[in-house]
């Protein structure tokens, strides 16, 4: 694996048992994602983008092929090793935010640091920094039910970024947001990508997101049909 590659996939096949046979969700996937890339997996429903995201995130195992993420061969690694990889080097952003309702913004963002056993002083510093990145400094003590959808997603981004992971996986992060909030969220993620050199991989079919992506991998029926590099994303003009 090249030092620059954060994800390296070779000859990946993913099949699910259906009835007496198998449904092939991904076939012959070969893919390399470098450090700092801002990449989207794009395609219609059922194209395999979430399955691919699951496999990159270590939530699912490949049926065949090699999947190497952050230097770990996910095909041969244990559940616990994959969990440790997610905990230390990955962040997740979901369409539905999935904030814990009884905890404040500060505490929600703090959770990955607690799981990584970061001491409380360091935690406080890192949480405040992450919350500042997403512009929620004045909402630190608020609970999720006191936040707007955009603020919830910004909290989720802060939670994903707080432990400075190398890779962030986002599944339809703007699907529940209006256009203005979607652009704000994408702008924040672009900034974080540039400032922290964190790699982002999105699974999306949202046009608004695509405008910000620097690489778009098109999936169709479980195969990569097109892999395009966008030299000048249109985000400035779109906003």
């Amino acid at each position, binding site marked *: 694996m090249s030092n620059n590659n954060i994800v390296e996939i070779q000859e990946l096949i993913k099949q699910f048992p259906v009835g007496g046979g198998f449904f092939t969700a991904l076939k012959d996937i070969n893919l390399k994602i470098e450090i700092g890339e801002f990449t989207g997996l794009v395609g219609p429903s059922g194209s395999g983008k979430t399955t691919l995201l699951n496999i990159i995130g270590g*939530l699912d195992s490949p049926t065949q092929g090699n999947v190497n993420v952050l230097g770990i061969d996910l095909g041969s690694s244990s559940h616990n090793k994959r969990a440790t990889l997610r905990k230390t080097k990955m962040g997740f952003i979901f369409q539905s935010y999935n904030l814990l309702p009884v905890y404040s913004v500060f505490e929600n963002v703090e959770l990955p640091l607690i799981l990584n056993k970061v001491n409380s002083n360091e935690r406080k510093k890192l949480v405040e920094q992450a919350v500042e990145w997403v512009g929620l400094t004045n909402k630190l003590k608020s609970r999720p039910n006191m936040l707007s959808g955009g603020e919830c997603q910004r909290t989720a981004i802060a939670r994903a970024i707080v432990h400075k992971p190398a890779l962030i996986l986002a599944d339809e992060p703007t699907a529940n947001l209006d256009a203005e909030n979607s652009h704000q969220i994408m702008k924040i993620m672009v900034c974080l990508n540039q400032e922290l050199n964190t790699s982002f991989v999105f699974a999306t079919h949202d046009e608004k997101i695509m405008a910000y992506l620097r690489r778009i991998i098109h999936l169709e029926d479980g195969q990569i049909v097109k892999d395009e590099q966008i030299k000048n994303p249109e985000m400035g003009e779109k906003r």
Partner: protein
Amino acid sequence: MLKFILKGILRDRSRSLFPIIVVALIVALVIFNRGFLVGTMNGMFRDTAVISSGHVKIMTHSYQEESQLMPNDLALMNVGEITEILGLKYSDYFWSPRISFAGLLDLPDEQGETKSQGPVMAIGIDFLSSESRQFELWELEKRIDSGHMIKNANDALVGAKLAEKLGLSLGDQVTYIGTTMNNAFTTFNFTVVGTFNLGMGPLDKQMMLVDIEGARMALDMNDAASEILGFKHDLYYDDDAAVAIRNQFNAVHSDASDIFRSSMIALRDANQMGAMIDLVDWSTFIILGIFLLIAMIVLWNMGIMSGLRRYGEMGIRLAMGETKGQVYRSLILESVIIGTIGTIIGTLIGLPLTYYVQEVGIDYSAAFENLNSSSLIMSSVFYTKVTPDLYYIGFIPGVLATVFGTMLAGRAIYKREMAQLFKELET
């Protein structure tokens, strides 16, 4: 992480308040139930012990064989000395001699002729010595209907129903007609100083209580007694201890050729009480087991409901890199915390309640009215009993059942498909 979990428990009422209330109620119920069972059964044992058997009882071997006949000609002699030795040797118990006797009770009119007469079953008890606990043991403060406690050797307390039947009034001189321990005819005058109601039908209709010195004078039984009864100082019947002391005592007094040798029986040896004690032990065990099972099922269901409600939280934690084992263990830790808090609260509710009923009792006299003609020695007022195990017994259902319930419910975490997390977390 513990602090994080505690914050969650404190803030999420459905995760804390409801389970804690359920655990506390179950614990309080278990404590009260246990106290009630032990108290009720101990009450039954105690009534039997006070009235007839003691926790242990010593008599001569030959008296024991014919004890139904109250054969005072076979009574123990040198009772003062024996009692002193028993007190030294078996200091966990206090010892009290007693004379059981029967005969006729005669109430004369102004001319000295019989006004009324009836059979009487009398017990001469050591009421008047300074170290006597018989007044407390018989709970005469509660049970004397009219008049006052025995103050002199020839004072008598008469069962209220017997007094009614014979037309006795306070201050009446009544004549006991019977036989001495030497089988000679005897009459002895007692003064009725009070009436009592034990709440036990047949006894109230026939019984007279006198001081043992009065009985000794009436029956010519100087320094003799039918039996010497031993009671644990805390008045709580400990079957194992009673059996042990019985075996130890009888092993020493085992000369089969001496028909007047002292012989000890435990409460379980009297009137088929052994079967009753075993039944009580088993029923207590079974009832507590059922309670434990019910508690576990309730808490298991509660755990499942909580798990369903927190499905998203578990999912996000798994996605963020907690292992299934870590999530499972954190749930168990939560259940330990909730179980402990609930148990402490439940114990704080259950113990005072049990103590209150121990002091005040529950009066079942109306319900037991029809049983008054039976020969069962049973009080119509039930008392609970606060025993040392009540301070910790709540932890069995409170913590163990909560943890077991959570362990069962939490198994769902291991069945969760990680590959479905993204999909599940979108809903």
